């Protein structure tokens, strides 16, 4: 029976990620994501990767969080979101074609991954990280497949990425931690850059759409 704090550290990120992904209210979802990143940093700390914990706090929680809130139009001064908070088709209606095209790859991937991991032995300490990584991966991909709001997809991408990082470090913690840390640091930087670019794009697209609608409305009045 593993100690209580291990179990707590493995389940807390998963629970927070699930709440962040399934909360209808996007501002709350983004706040939950920041909390999620902080608990992941705690997990890194507990696994003995201090540098990763530091980077996770800095890149994963602070900077990614800042860009996520920026995407919603929330800054230090302005507290009401300017971007549309829901997508009309979110989550997408369940039809067979979409289920086959979007969800089947996710399920196939998870099945393949379980099959491959079954043949890899796991130590007592890394088993919890491996399972929480797998669940995060599944949650993220599931949301990515079924949601159309761009911000929701960015959240899902970040959570999938974190799941992969946890899985990676649980696999390599005993054999080659240096190479694993190199990969995770690259991955963290890339995930942050991707989120930043995506957030700026969401803002720009929202502004252009508003402008478009405004000109269309003005044109309608003039004629």
């Amino acid at each position, binding site marked *: 029976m593993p100690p209580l704090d291990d179990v707590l550290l493995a389940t807390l990120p998963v629970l927070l990620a699930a709440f962040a992904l399934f909360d209808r209210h996007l501002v709350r979802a983004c706040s939950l994501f920041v909390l999620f990143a902080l608990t992941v940093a705690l997990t890194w700390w507990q696994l003995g990767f201090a540098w990763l914990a530091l980077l996770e706090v800095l890149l994963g929680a602070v900077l990614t969080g800042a860009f996520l809130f920026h995407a919603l139009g929330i800054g230090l001064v302005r507290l009401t979101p300017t971007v549309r908070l829901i997508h009309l088709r979110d989550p997408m209606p369940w039809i067979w074609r979409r289920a086959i095209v979007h969800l089947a790859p996710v399920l196939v991937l998870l099945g393949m991954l379980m099959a*491959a991991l079954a043949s890899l032995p796991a130590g007592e300490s890394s088993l919890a990280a491996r399972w929480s990584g797998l669940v995060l991966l599944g949650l993220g991909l599931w949301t*990515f497949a079924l949601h159309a709001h761009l911000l929701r997809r960015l959240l899902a991408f970040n959570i999938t990425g974190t799941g992969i990082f946890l899985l990676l470090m649980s696999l*390599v913690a005993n*054999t080659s931690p*240096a*190479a694993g840390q*190199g990969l995770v640091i690259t991955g963290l930087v890339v995930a942050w*850059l991707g989120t930043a670019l995506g957030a700026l794009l969401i803002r*720009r697209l929202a502004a252009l759409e508003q402008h478009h609608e405004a000109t269309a409305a003005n044109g309608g009045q003039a004629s």
Partner: protein
Amino acid sequence: MIERLGLETTQLPTTGSSMVTLLAVGLPLLLGVVGAVYRPTTRSWPAVLVSLLALLPLLVLMRLVVTHGTQAWSLELGGLTLYWRANGLTLLLLLLTQLLVLASAAYAPSYLRVVVQARGKGQVWLWPLMGLLASSLSVIWLAADLLALYIGLELMGLSAVGLMLLPGRIEALTAGMRYLLLALIGSLAFLLGVALLLGTWGRLDLAGLASAVEPGPVLWVAMALLSAGLLLKAAVFPLHAWLAPVHGSAWTPVSALHAALVIKASFFIALQLWLVLTPGAVAAAWVVGVMGAAAVVWGGLLAWRADKLKDVVAWSTVSQLGYLLIGFPLLIGTAPAVAGIAWNGIWLQLLAHSLAKAAMFLAVGNLMLATGELRVSGLAGASRRFPLALLSFGIAAISLVGLPPSAGFTAKWLLLHAALAAGQWPWLVVLAAGTLLSAAYVFRVFRYSFVEDVELEEYEPVPLKMDLIALILALASLLLGLTAAWPLALLAMSGGAP
């Protein structure tokens, strides 16, 4: 095959070669940043000069490799070791990258002056992103371990997305957002595959992995993940739908670079990983070959039916990439003699397509600027007004269709030869169908442009310089067919001295 990739070499590198390589990788990025500060807005000769400067260390490296044989280095970073190598193939790809970046850099200032004189916002970012793209591509060609490949792949993907976003219009942003999400998902799949390999065998260098890996579920799942991520980024047949919208709204020089190089880099990594890790997976290689065959036919059909000029060229990329994928079953599990022919055919096809496709994008960009039309049918009457742009388009098309004496012809001939020697006749049918389809979509463009009874009312000829750059690239793809012995000799130069 692994010795052809230059991964296993016994000799020590020559002194100074690692410095030259670092310079060859880093200089484009550095010059790109300088380009952002001193923007060449009025003339293109500074851009050309600076790009030529970036070529210098590459030429030195080339001399070193030609005289001393394959060079391999390792770079220590803390507890990490990154592996690098340069052989004939690497040099060829590096040279191709630098030359195409040079062509785009020469084309861009005039293009930007004509197209975006009013909105100058995106221009600042063009040069550093182009430099970053060239540097990350160089990393990919040179890297001999999975960490360096991952870093190169990510930098390339992000800079490519950034370049596609520069026009700033709503269509460009929508397509760019889709491309960003796809690229990110593709790299997550790649990372997961790398994680499985590292977790099982505890190393990332390709030469070491080649001797360590054992067939089993872990290897197959890892390869499936790696291939899926890379093929998504390479726009291979069932995963190709994102390509045309992305090109549709991008700037012409960016489109040329993307189709010629970015797509090829993912293909290069995938082929390298297959040859190193699963050299015996014949059935899986056939699956990839069938995907390639489907890409040749479906991409050709889409290009034939496309309404917009740029879509014709973009779908033709999907079709032409299919030929490269047919190389998988010809290389894996075949006799060494057959694999040798297919090897030459694949790289020659890659070179020919890159040059021809860049030329075609530039020519089409010129036609679109001159006529102000985006659609193929809008070209009516173009033959009398813009003979030079149509000439470049035609010469590039000769290579794409695969007519002699172009490099495209030589490459397809080699692939045909390999397919016959291996007894894999289905690929002959695919090659024939692909040739017919590419002839069909090329002649459709010509049919519209030779309509004589339409008077063009509004047209604005582009500067002669832009037409000449497209023409030079097209001629290069044609002449490469006549001088094919030179790249093939460079390819044949494996392990030791030539």
